[in-house]
């Protein structure tokens, strides 16, 4: 069956893939390295790669200046809350689209995606005014709702493509045995859909974590997540590469680590039905 792969060919593949992988990863690696340099070393000419005096001073400077824990907590709540809420709304919709398709199902699906193309900045004032009316400016709940709505189309689509892969025969067999709709969902569908839901959760958590327009414009002090945290380091006076790197590392580290640990699940869900 499998072709005999010579070690030589494998070595070439390995070298090429690692070279490309490291090249793609390099900007992140460089940011992490720079965060351990002094400001002077950070702009040294020629640049130093590893042989410098590693220091934690940038991290302590950032910690001293900003309440990192609160930004982080807000990010977690907003990204987590909006994702969970989104899944709760999306699962029934995706389920019915997948198993009770009508002529309009595809239109509805694509229409949902098209709502994502509205330019956010065009509706900033209207949304801001609505938020004032509702009294939810600078509140986590307000952001949870907005981010949930932004990502809902993606969630519905992902779940839909997942549910479609579940063989209908199984459901029908269950129905023959007298399973009710409720049983169908709880005992047959859910176990089969869990991997799909997990990867949907992950992807949308990432998208929500990185959303930088609404999270910045609808918050002040109380609900500001890490996107606002990074906006306070973006171009201060004087040398700032090292501190910017430290702040950047702190902003992306949680999601990077989560992503790495869960990349298998994430990847399996990233197909959007691209594979049949």
């Amino acid at each position, binding site marked *: 069956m499998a072709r005999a792969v010579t070690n030589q060919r*494998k070595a070439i*593949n*390995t070298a090429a*893939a*690692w070279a*490309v*992988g490291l090249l*793609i*990863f390099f*900007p*992140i690696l*460089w940011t992490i390295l*720079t965060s351990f340099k002094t400001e002077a070393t950070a702009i040294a000419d020629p640049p130093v790669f590893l042989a410098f005096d590693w220091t934690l001073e940038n991290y302590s400077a950032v910690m001293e200046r900003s309440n990192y824990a609160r930004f982080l907590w807000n990010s977690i709540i907003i990204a987590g809350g909006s994702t969970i809420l989104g899944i709760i*709304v999306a699962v*029934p*919709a995706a389920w*019915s689209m997948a*198993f*009770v398709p*009508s002529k309009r199902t595809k239109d*509805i*699906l*694509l229409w*949902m995606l*098209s*709502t*994502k*193309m509205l*330019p*956010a*900045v*065009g*509706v900033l*004032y*209207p949304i801001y005014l609505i938020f004032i009316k509702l009294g939810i400016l600078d509140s986590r709940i307000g952001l949870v709702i907005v981010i949930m*709505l932004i990502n*809902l*189309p993606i969630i519905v689509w992902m779940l839909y493509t997942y549910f479609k892969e579940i063989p209908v025969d199984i459901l029908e067999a269950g129905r023959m045995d007298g399973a009710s709709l409720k049983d169908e969902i709880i005992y047959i569908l859910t176990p089969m859909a869990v991997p799909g839901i997990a990867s949907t959760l992950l992807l949308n958590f*990432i998208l929500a*974590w*990185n959303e*930088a327009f609404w999270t910045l414009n609808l918050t002040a002090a109380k609900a500001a997540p*890490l*996107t606002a945290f990074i906006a306070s380091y*973006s171009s201060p006076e004087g040398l700032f*590469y090292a501190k910017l*790197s430290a702040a*950047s590392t702190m*902003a*992306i580290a949680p999601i*990077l680590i989560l*992503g*790495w640990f869960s*990349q298998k699940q*994430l*990847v*399996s869900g990233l*197909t959007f039905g*691209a*594979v049949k």
Partner: protein
Amino acid sequence: MATQHSRSAARFMMAPAVVLLLGWMLVPLLMTLYFSFKTYLPLRGGDLGWTGFDNYVRFVSSSAFWPSIQATLIIVGGALIITVGFGVLLGILLNQPMWGQGVVRILVIAPFFVMPTVSALVWKNMFMDPTNGLLAHLWRFFGADPVVWLSDASLFSIILIVSWQWLPFATLILLTAIQSLDGEQLEASEMDGAPVLKRFWYIVLPHLSRAITIVILIETIFLLSIFAEILVTTGGAFGTRTLTYLIFQRVLESQNVGLGSAGGVYAIILANIVAIFLMRIVGKNLDA
């Protein structure tokens, strides 16, 4: 299996998502439409009355309008070509037998986790800065004059940053698709002595068409509204002012909500043209 009972149950279950999205679309849309027919200048006291189609005419007749459409299409198109092109190649490469495949995949996926603001800041300052940026050091090392990326190659720079962020996404979807390719079919063609390029063209690419369509669709949705990458790097200068950025300038910098709202309506029209266009291709490749 679609009985009357399950039909209505389906409608019932779809309702929350549809209603929410309808609200999310209609409320801002109606408000944008409303403002677009008004002279609305927040710094001059807000609502100064109806103005008919003035804002629409003014937005289109502005010298910045057509260049902004052009910039939008170049950025979206450029990023799509790069991510899909390299995504296919990278997908094929990662599908080869090798040591440490898992680690390489982790390295390749990483940029997808980086928030746009951070990646724009890092690229702008630590790589593209003409004095202290790493690329400038590299150019000088080879005795060349550093490129001033953000002014001399502004559109390319932005496409590069955006592509870096989206390449992992394209690669992973395409990789999954390649993995599902029927190995025996490939082997057979290999036995027949079909050259690599021919095999790629007649077997691999058709198999990937569906995945490529999905990548284009999803990426277009996100790329049409890129904002942070431009705000942080060029601030819209040097021909990088996209339609989204132009609207931002009208609404927030010029504080002309009416004019910006008219621009928003145009952006919605553009998005829908692109969407219809995409649906045509997707429709063929996607049996929903």
